[in-house]
């Protein structure tokens, strides 16, 4: 129903019993661990360069402030129609599919979408950052503001 609201009418069906029935049938499941902002900050500080951080918020949110370690890749650019190759790069820089990739947005909604898309594209250690940038700010963790624009 909700999909028809935007004009998606090509729905084949729904899995009877959902993911639980898949699990009960003994079929394999994928996982995306959730990581808190405090743990992410510790990872970035203690093992710099190990975790790749991707921020999937839009340009305006990014410009207002972001994590220093983060790379910017707006969720809207990550369509299924886009080349698989483009999903493995940020601004022309290749991401490492074998290293941890922590994905965050503002609150955690968009980053979970992006996490699933990264995993589909072959990333083996995707982490979804719980609570996103809001949680990061709430913990008063360091933020970089690229443009010297006065904060509103």
């Amino acid at each position: 129903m909700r999909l028809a609201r935007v004009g998606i009418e090509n729905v084949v069906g729904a899995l009877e019993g959902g993911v639980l029935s898949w699990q009960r049938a003994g079929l394999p499941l994928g996982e995306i661990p959730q990581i808190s902002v405090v743990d992410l900050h510790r990872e970035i500080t203690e093992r710099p360069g190990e975790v790749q951080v991707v921020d999937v918020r839009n340009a305006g949110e990014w410009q207002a402030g972001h994590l220093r370690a983060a790379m910017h890749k707006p969720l809207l650019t990550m369509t299924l129609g886009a080349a698989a190759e483009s999903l493995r790069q940020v601004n022309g820089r290749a991401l490492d599919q074998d290293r941890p990739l922590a994905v965050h947005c503002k609150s955690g909604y968009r980053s979970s979408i992006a996490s699933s898309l990264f995993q589909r594209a072959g990333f083996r250690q995707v982490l979804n950052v719980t609570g996103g940038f809001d949680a990061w700010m709430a913990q008063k963790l360091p933020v970089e503001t690229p443009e010297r624009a006065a904060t509103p």
Partner: protein
Amino acid sequence: MHFQQFYLGCLAHASYLLGSEGVAAVVDPQRDVEVYLEEAARLQLKIAYVIETHLHADFVSGHRELAARTGAKIYLGARAGASFPHHPVVEGDTIRFGRCMLKFLETPGHTPESACILVTDLDRGPQPWAVLTGDTLFLGDVGRPDLSAEFTPQRLAGMLYDSLHTKLLALADEVEVYPAHGAGSLCGRNISNERSSTIGQQRQLNYALQVRGRDDFVRMLTTDLPERPGYFARDAEINRSGAAALSELAPLPSLSCDEFARQQKAGAIALDTRPAAQFGGGHIPGSVHIALSGQFASWAGALLGLDRPLLLLAEDQPRSQCPPAPAAGGGAHAAGAGGH
């Protein structure tokens, strides 16, 4: 008069029901029109007018189905070139029913055919007390000018400047503003969280209304535009001809694990709609996660497109407070919590 806003979280979309003395108008209806029919019946109103402030690009509108089921007449900007029977709206057109008077302002900019509607309640006084601004003026933002195939963003942004400054800002400060979208909508950049405001507040606080000079406004509005979701052009065209009634769509089949896996192998995309924690804890490999709790439909349209065959995964335990899913449409299991 009766005035009611319907807010749909999954599209950050607002629609309106206005009624007086047994007659009602619905403005910018969502595709599943049952909500208006039920509310109108409860209030003993007959829906006689269905109004589109413009051809929406971000969702499929229910204007035709609502008109077909009520006998209402559709009102839409003359410049839309719509192919279904409708009243082509021009500047100054009015509709009056009971104590309610609606007057149309042509406000091109977001799209060429965009219109705003001044609402007067004759019991309150002879002056309009509210304006329905569609995607022309949002709370804290204005509509994006880059969705037309016919006009350049620069041209539309210029028209938008004129519409805002000669039509909307000419209204009195106390006139209440009710737009078609709220925060997070892909139709704006920076829409605030409120559901209504006033012309005076917007005059003071809306960043886009602070810019003086048409050229500066055009430059500001056409720089750093967010990506335009691929499905927008398609939805605008669907709305121009009018979508099939939902009751004509086939019901959603339930699939066994084997069938699900077979379809997935054949290229269908598994779409998991559960909360993030459930998805993270265990999901079918290869599935895309878009939780029902947020702007589910918008993201599904923007990221997956409209044509890929989809396989749905719903919550393990359907929540009991959910309204019954409509018999028709793309997913009994996906109907989820009401209001999204």
